[in-house]
């Protein structure tokens, strides 16, 4: 009797787990198909080549123009700026944490970094509007600091916790015997870090960078608040830009249902999806490589 009860519990739990698993797949598939479906609808009206090579995004103009380039370049500009700041800072901080910091410093710094990851993006965007933006405007002598640089710095701050944590893990994963071997032939701590530990952690650090890039590309609220949202073709770091994510967030609320404009937002979302997919796959590739290499 008891055995029968246990078996039926077992069976029903298995069923529940299976259902939730299938549900997740169904939701993912649904999103993917909705994206694909609406993107196709868009491409029936606008030629894909015009879309990809168009240098103007002006859906409310006459005639309507749907060139993704200004948005794409904006996204790339902000992400690039963020990574130029966050990668050296992140790797440096992680190296300090794993190789130099005392237990005391670590026990303060690590929770602080984790807390940084918990700050909502609205709050960071707000800081960009009231503190960082005006600061940049003052230094450069602009009337308005809401530009690509502002967004890049904020995104760097947001990507830092990911980059630091994953790089720190990667450095910790490097066997201590490598460091000993390096010290054994007379290398200093610094030489060991640069020539042995960081190269050995290379794939893990690449994965950290990719995760950081993914975080920066997909971020919406902060860039929406901080970069000025000019749909014109970006002219540089100290000009207003408008990223793909911000464009979707701004325009989706107002666009009439099933118009070309409506479909176009799915098309740029699909492009964003492809980019983040590529970044994630690259990151995944490096994570696996790192694992394989350390289990060997």
């Amino acid at each position, binding site marked *: 009797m008891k055995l029968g009860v246990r078996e039926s519990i077992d069976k029903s739990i298995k069923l529940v787990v299976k259902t939730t698993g299938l549900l997740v797949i169904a939701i993912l598939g649904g999103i993917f198909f909705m994206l694909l479906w609406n993107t196709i609808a868009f491409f029936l009206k606008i030629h894909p080549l015009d879309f990809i090579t168009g240098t103007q995004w002006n859906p409310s103009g006459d005639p309507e123009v749907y060139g993704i380039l200004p948005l794409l370049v904006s996204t790339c500009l902000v992400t690039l700026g963020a990574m130029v700041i966050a990668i050296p800072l992140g790797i440096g901080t992680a190296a300090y944490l794993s190789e130099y910091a*005392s237990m005391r410093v670590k026990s303060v710094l690590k929770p602080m970094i984790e807390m940084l990851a918990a700050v909502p993006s609205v709050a960071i965007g707000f800081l960009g509007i009231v503190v960082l933006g005006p600061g940049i405007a003052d230094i450069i002598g602009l009337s308005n600091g809401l530009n690509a640089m502002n967004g890049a710095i904020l995104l760097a701050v947001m990507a830092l916790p990911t980059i630091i944590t994953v790089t720190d893990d990667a450095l910790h994963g490097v*066997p201590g*015997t*490598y460091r*000993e*071997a*390096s*010290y*054994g*032939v*007379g*290398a*200093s*701590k610094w*030489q060991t870090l640069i*020539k*042995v530990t960081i*190269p*050995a952690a290379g794939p893990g650090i690449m994965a950290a960078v990719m995760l950081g890039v993914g975080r920066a590309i997909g971020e919406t609220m902060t860039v929406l608040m901080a970069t000025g949202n000019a749909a014109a073709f970006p002219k540089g770091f100290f000009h207003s830009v408008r990223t793909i994510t911000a464009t979707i967030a701004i325009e989706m609320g107002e666009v009439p249902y099933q118009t070309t404009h409506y479909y176009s937002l799915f098309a740029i979302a699909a492009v964003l999806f492809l980019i983040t997919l590529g970044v994630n796959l690259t990151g995944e590739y490096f994570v696996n490589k790192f694992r394989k*290499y350390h289990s*060997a």
Partner: protein
Amino acid sequence: MTNKPIKLSGSSVNVWFGSKQVLKNINVEFPRNQVTALIGPSGCGKSTLLRSFNRMHDLSPDARIEGEFLLEQQNLYEKGLSVTEVRRRIGMVFQKANPFPKSIYENINYGLKINDVPKNERSEIIENALKESYIWDEVKDELQKPATRLSGGQQQRLCIARAVALRPEVILMDEPCSALDPLSTLKIEELIVKLKKDYTIVIVTHNMQQAQRIADKTVFMYLGEVIEAGDTHTIFHNPKNELTGNYVKGHFG
């Protein structure tokens, strides 16, 4: 047996990790061009003693070291003496073969770069070091192969080559064969015996047969102290201390 001059010595050595004293008033001497074995039950401080000589404890903040460490006349802890210099003169081979995840060639080249050996001399030094460590014939055609793909025994001989390439005067070995099969172990033992012509060797071993096969002198340690030191034959067949006798007969350990 004629007595060779002392190459390396430690006197009144005390080492603490935090508040725990690991080495207690140790006095040891290692004669030049001889193999000296450090034996004793695990945890008695053999590795700690070995690593005091090439200053590997410098990087552990909770280690405290007292005593005089001499390489011939040179005080190894003298102010102003760089650890790079100490470690060039005193090489080390570790318990687990630890080649860098780099090519065979680069594994040896790394130490040469660190020690500022001129570029045009390096490839000859690398070849000689590999020959001296009896691994040249096995790897000469694939110097660019990752060192991690070599067998365990080959990796350990590569690590010996890495140490030898810097022309050290002393080579410290911490249980270099403990992870190897009997055949690889035998090869390393042969190598050690050949190396003593040019180097002074100190080797930690748990293998009593190995100590008797390769060591001229043996130091027996117990609970952080040196109990007895002398000719290997005497330590194994005619020990003065009862504890030594019990240990080498395998009554504890």
